[in-house]
């Protein structure tokens, strides 16, 4: 690898670059992956991450976030000191019920799994990003281990979902046909209608 990587030519350099990626990363990112992204040696990434983490923890002015290394890599977390405030933010306005939008999205996922968010959006005719996040947070759905076409993340329902619905397995999901009069072959109809 060259001594001067592209990231070195940007203001803030590698450290800011790492911050940028980690700020939007949902799951922990390994330093190997980061090294690949920035085309720099892993050791350099590791050192920069350690330096950032220490900087955020500074006694003078601890940041509200911390950079922590967990088993699978590095991720930003909110700092524990402020957990009370974070909790009151998280709990504020939370309901114990699923919204109609969440319920419908869950239903689409249950009967079409594994399915991408793009496909769900196409079926429901609205953006489902935030609803999918809610369902993930609630443990009703999870990521499917394999990617869909074009690297899209696919979703499937969880064991917890089956429990809550009182079902032993997905096979016990009631058939849709009684509720869809005149639709003989739902599968083909569905793909014909929404794939474009």
């Amino acid at each position, binding site marked *: 690898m060259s001594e001067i990587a592209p990231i070195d030519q940007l203001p803030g350099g590698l450290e800011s670059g790492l911050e940028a990626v980690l*700020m*939007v*990363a*949902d*799951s922990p*990112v390994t330093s190997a*992956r980061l090294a690949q992204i920035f085309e720099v040696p892993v050791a350099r990434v590791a050192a920069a991450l350690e330096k950032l983490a220490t900087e955020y923890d500074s006694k003078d002015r601890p940041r509200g976030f911390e950079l922590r290394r967990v088993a699978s890599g590095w991720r930003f*977390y*909110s700092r524990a000191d402020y957990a009370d405030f974070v*909790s009151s933010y998280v*709990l504020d306005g*939370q309901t*114990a*019920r*699923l919204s109609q939008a969440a*319920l*419908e*999205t869950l*239903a*689409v996922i*249950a*009967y*079409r799994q594994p399915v*991408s*968010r*793009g*496909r769900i*959006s*196409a*079926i*429901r*005719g609205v*953006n489902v*990003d935030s609803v999918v*996040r809610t369902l*993930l*947070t*609630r443990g009703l759905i999870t*990521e499917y281990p394999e*990617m*869909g076409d*074009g690297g*899209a*993340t696919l979703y499937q329902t969880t064991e917890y979902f089956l429990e*809550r*619905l*009182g*079902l032993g397995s997905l096979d*016990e*999901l*009631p*058939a*849709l046909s009684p*509720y*869809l009069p005149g639709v003989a072959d*739902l599968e083909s109809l*569905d793909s014909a*209608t929404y*794939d*474009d």
Partner: protein
Amino acid sequence: MSAVLREEPSVQTAADSPATDPESGAEESAGGFRLALDNFNGPFDVLLHLITKRELDITEVALAEVTDEFIAYLRELQARSLYEGDDGMKVLDETTEFLVVASTLLDLKAARLLPRGEMADEEDFELLEARDLLFARLLQYKAFKTAAEFLGGRYESEGARKPREVALEPQFAALLPELVFNISAQRFAQIAAAALEPKPEPQTEVGLGHLHGANVTIAAEAEAIAGMLREHGAMDFTALVADAQLHLVVVVRFLALLEMFRQKVIVFEQQHPLGDLQISLAGESDFDAEAVQDDYDASEGEGDHE
């Protein structure tokens, strides 16, 4: 390793099949319209392009000047669709707006070619009005096109930043109130069925405003009535509208009759109570059909839209 959370556009891409490339503008419509939109977004876009190409200022341009090129574009469009195995007329069917614009342009051009007479003519005014309307709509379209450029630039530059929208940290997720989710499997299936059921295509709203009632005017219908009466002598209303293809014509002929009666051009005769009214010309009639029309211009608008 992928994030649970992706930026929104990526998600949507899966919904856009390869068939609809969001880049090309070809998504406009499933039918022959695609072709029209290969390069342009409808007639105004073409017109603007033609005007810009000639380095004309839109606020001053004589629209008649770009007519030939616009018509040529339409022809090319049709030829290309024929070549590609489409029914060329299908394209035109779906692009009536193109035709409206084309016909207005042709009118304007024709007016320029004709010797300049006195401008008091009814048709001259209509032409001016059509031109102003087209002009206003073109300006309006241009304004929105500019706004679209702004939005597009914004969309692009903002796409370079990604918002943080990550899953809740587990210790906070654990604080959420226990989920109330006691729905029966049957009910759940019903919700799924409703969600998966294909939505009815939204009804295509077709603007009818530009279909100017097949140009039915009181003047023309009064002429027609006079002609029939001259040829056949007395007739009843049923006979007078026997050849009418449109309700509109029936209505307009009725109005024309009232007007002709008012001008004492025709007389009504009733042989016996509740019998049919017989209509005939009142002697030597040299009524002025245009005058009949003028009286109705004030209230025009509803009448010639069907």
